């Protein structure tokens, strides 16, 4: 009994021992299979993960490309600046270090608290920026007392600097950190901390200026601490850009504009389309926007009702006033409404429909042909010819002379203005065109809106006998433009009239003529508000000192020299009074200055 029990027990033990051993072997096989999967089958996947683990890419920011004017004057550069950093692990006491540092540079309580707070959040080997762009004297003091400043170190950075401050601001724009939307752009998304162009040429040439980022492959441990550098590809500096702008003319123009509240001067080289000057006031200093703190400066800009951020040359829309009369005259001559000898009599006003349309000269100009009408800027003559011409033909010619469009000049946010016709009014306003509106349009009022730069292009096309000038902001090397022969005969007549405007007695800009070099042009005075009948009857309404914002805009367009036109200009002084008294003298000064530069 006992013996058989013993035997049974032994055989049970042996059986179960065997089962248990098989069970363990099969469980070991399972982990063995698992290891085979991880270490053999999926090994390459884990190898790349391991590489990724240990290798980090650090982007080396490129230095932004410089911008020069046409004479290789540096107008946007990068200045080396010095920033102060703290590495928490390199100091025994952050407080002591900050105390020592405060002997050389003022650390306010808020900054101190922020640094200490940051030091508890970031990894102890990560650098914390304490100061940006410190002065030379502070830099010197910190460098000489380095041994007392545990954990402090100084790093170089580049700061974009515009040496001519507010004189090129609308052209160049400024740079700043990309916003959320801009971060999706392909070349920006890789460098979210790199400043990019936000306005003007800095924005449109950003892909060129930004350069190519370099990178450093570094081995990092699980904390992100750098163990060693594996490879390094240096960054490539952004390209240099040479503008067509002549800094001297630009500065001269800005200074002229500064004696007025707001305005714009544009100068184009007719021969090659180069923009020599694109000045707009009021202006702003981009350096003050880039350098922090900029809050106060921003607020002052935004609070300014004249909106200094607006580049009036391409973003300001004005009624062209009498500068539009060349277009109307060319259209009338082209379509045979008038010839060079056709006259109309000006009595100071005409009636049309149930309204009176006034000439600026209350008593009338008398008998006028097209040359006289441009020379003396007779409104009635243009009322008369526009009645027969119709708005659509005027619009067609206006478009042929570059109005109502934007140009490929790499300047963002150009406003195209309005060249109205019947179809336009139906579509945009939903009303039919009234015949009276043609009369108003003929003297550059009403719906017609242009920006000052468009007027300069229009003038260039007239001056070059119909060459289709393509303006450029980049220094060009020899371009030829196609000529539109369509208006050759008409332009000849108009150019003579524009000569007389400046150089003959009774011409509206006769007072602004230059003796040594002849230029041609056309004044314009665009009404800001309608003049009531009672005011008009009170005879002296033009002389009366009116409130600034109610005054007319003063315009002048012109070209020089008359015989072989090389420069065209457009001048607008907002609420400047009349074109003859305010804008023409400015054009004269600019032409004179350019003439002096050439000699």
């Amino acid at each position, binding site marked *: 009994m006992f013996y058989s029990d013993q035997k049974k027990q032994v055989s049970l033990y042996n059986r179960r021992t065997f089962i248990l051993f098989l069970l363990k072997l099969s469980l070991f096989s399972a*982990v063995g299979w698992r290891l085979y999967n991880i270490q053999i089958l999926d090994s390459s996947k884990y190898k790349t993960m391991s590489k990724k683990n240990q290798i980090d890419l650090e982007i080396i920011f490129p230095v932004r490309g410089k911008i020069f004017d046409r004479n290789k004057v540096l107008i946007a550069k990068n200045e080396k600046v010095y920033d102060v950093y703290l590495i928490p692990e390199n100091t025994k006491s952050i407080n002591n270090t900050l105390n020592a540092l405060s002997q050389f540079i003022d650390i306010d309580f808020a900054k101190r608290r922020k640094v200490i707070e940051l030091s508890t959040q970031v990894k102890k080997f990560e650098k914390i920026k304490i100061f940006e762009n410190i002065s030379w004297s502070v830099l010197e003091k910190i460098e000489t007392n380095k041994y007392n400043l545990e954990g402090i170190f100084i790093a170089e950075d580049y700061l974009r600097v515009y040496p001519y401050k507010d004189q090129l601001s609308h052209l160049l724009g400024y740079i700043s950190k990309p916003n959320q939307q801009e971060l999706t752009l392909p070349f920006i998304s890789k460098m979210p901390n790199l400043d990019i162009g936000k306005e003007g040429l800095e924005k449109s040439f950003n892909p060129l200026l930004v350069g190519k980022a370099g990178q450093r492959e570094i081995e990092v441990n699980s904390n992100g601490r750098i163990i060693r550098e594996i490879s390094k590809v240096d960054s490539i500096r952004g390209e240099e850009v040479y503008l067509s702008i002549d800094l001297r003319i630009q500065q001269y123009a800005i200074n002229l504009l500064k004696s007025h509240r707001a305005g714009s001067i544009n100068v184009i080289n007719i021969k090659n389309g180069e923009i020599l000057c694109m000045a707009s006031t009021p202006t702003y200093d981009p350096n003050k926007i880039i350098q922090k703190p900029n809050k106060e400066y921003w607020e002052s800009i935004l609070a300014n009702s004249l909106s200094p951020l607006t580049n009036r040359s391409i973003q300001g829309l004005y009624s062209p006033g009498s500068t539009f009369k060349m277009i109307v005259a060319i259209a009338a001559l082209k379509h045979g409404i008038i010839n060079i000898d056709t006259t109309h009599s000006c009595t100071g006003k005409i009636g049309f429909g149930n309204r009176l349309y006034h000439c600026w000269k209350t008593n009338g100009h008398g008998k006028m042909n097209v040359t006289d009408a441009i020379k003396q800027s007779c409104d009635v003559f243009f009322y008369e010819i526009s009645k027969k011409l119709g708005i659509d033909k005027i619009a067609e010619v206006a478009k042929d002379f570059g109005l109502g469009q934007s140009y490929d000049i790499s300047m963002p946010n150009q406003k195209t203005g309005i060249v109205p016709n019947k179809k336009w009014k139906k579509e945009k306003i939903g009303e039919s065109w009234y015949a009276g509106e043609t009369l108003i349009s003929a003297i550059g009022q009403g719906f017609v809106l242009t920006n000052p730069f468009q007027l300069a292009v229009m003038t260039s096309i007239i001056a070059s006998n119909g060459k289709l000038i393509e303006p450029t902001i980049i220094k060009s090397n020899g371009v030829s433009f196609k000529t539109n022969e369509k208006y050759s005969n008409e332009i000849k007549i108009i150019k003579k009239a524009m000569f007389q405007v400046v150089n003959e007695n009774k011409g509206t800009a006769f007072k602004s003529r230059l003796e040594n070099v002849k230029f041609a042009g056309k004044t314009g005075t665009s009404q800001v508000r309608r003049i009531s009948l009672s005011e008009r009857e009170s005879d002296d309404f033009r002389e009366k000192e009116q409130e600034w914002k109610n005054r007319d805009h003063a315009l002048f367009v012109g070209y020089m020299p008359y015989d072989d036109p090389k420069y065209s200009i457009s001048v607008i002084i907002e609420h400047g009074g009349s074109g003859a008294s305010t804008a023409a003298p400015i054009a004269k000064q600019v032409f004179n200055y350019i003439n002096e530069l050439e000699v």
Partner: protein
Amino acid sequence: MIFEKIKNLNYLVIFLLILISFIGAAGLYSAADGSYQPWASRHLVRFYVFLLMAIVISFIDIKIIYKYSYVLFGLTLLLLISVEIIGVLGKGATRWIRVFGFSIQPSELVKITIILALAKFYHDIKFENIKKISYLFFPFIILAIPFVFVVIQPDLGTSLSILILGAFILFLAGIRFWKFILGFIITLVSIPIFLQSIKPYQRDRIISFLNPESDPLGKGYQLIQSKIALGSGGATGKGFLQGTQSYLEYLPEKQTDFIFTLIGEEFGFLGTIFIILLFILLIAVCYFISIKCFHSYGRILALGVASNIFIYVFMNIAMVSGLMPVVGIPLPLISYGGSVMLSIMISIGLVLNVELNYNLKKLDNA
């Protein structure tokens, strides 16, 4: 007498222990970026001391060990309970207790005395009584008390291994298969009841332990990094001291629970399989001793020790290779840590003892 015992010692086991511990020392040397400090040298010193201790244990009269099996179980249980009491008084979870200047984890020792107690119990009862339900009560108590105290520490890895160890021993002893299924179901059902009956802070500890998502950079991160280390080792490894995962501190607990992945990174699939084969060999030798032994005490003891080693090795590798949740089980003789090495070496000493006394028929009346 003593010379005969020295002569009859199982030198294959001793050789395997030395080999495995040296691999462990090499891994620890690498984990310290090629330095004996702070782990490798202490690991080796401990090993030598504990090996000597194991040999001394193997020379002790097995009847004395047999006689005091329940006493030893009671003493280790007391240690385990005092850890919990100290934890309560000290307002913090702890698994450690200081004995003679050593930090000891009583839960590791208790596993050995559970084997002793169960071995004595099944040695003493008659064969026909094994099947009786009433004779399951005592083994149940032997397993349940330490299990509960380990769970509330909370040390789910060790408590799970106590359950599995118990199941292995009871299976060997002859308990019917359906009773294990029943026991498994009862365990599952009693989990919610158990969670209700313990103190809230103990419950919180267990729940936070079971919910590693509360710490996304914790357990999940550990596992990913450990798989990267293993996988990037490939077939033959990156070479000794060339493991980037550990060198760059991506590997968590590289000197303890995750040392297997470090070895896997540096020695590849060949290295990991070699270690598994060494353990299989060690376990197989224990099985051989168990089969060879005449008395139930020795049989159960040797197989219990083999099962204990198996549970450590299997759970550790399954854990670091992502087959099992990360529960904190070290790899015996390779991971750094005194308690586990102590308990493994004591238990190996017991197995050696069993082999030296394999031909005894009965232990109590001899």
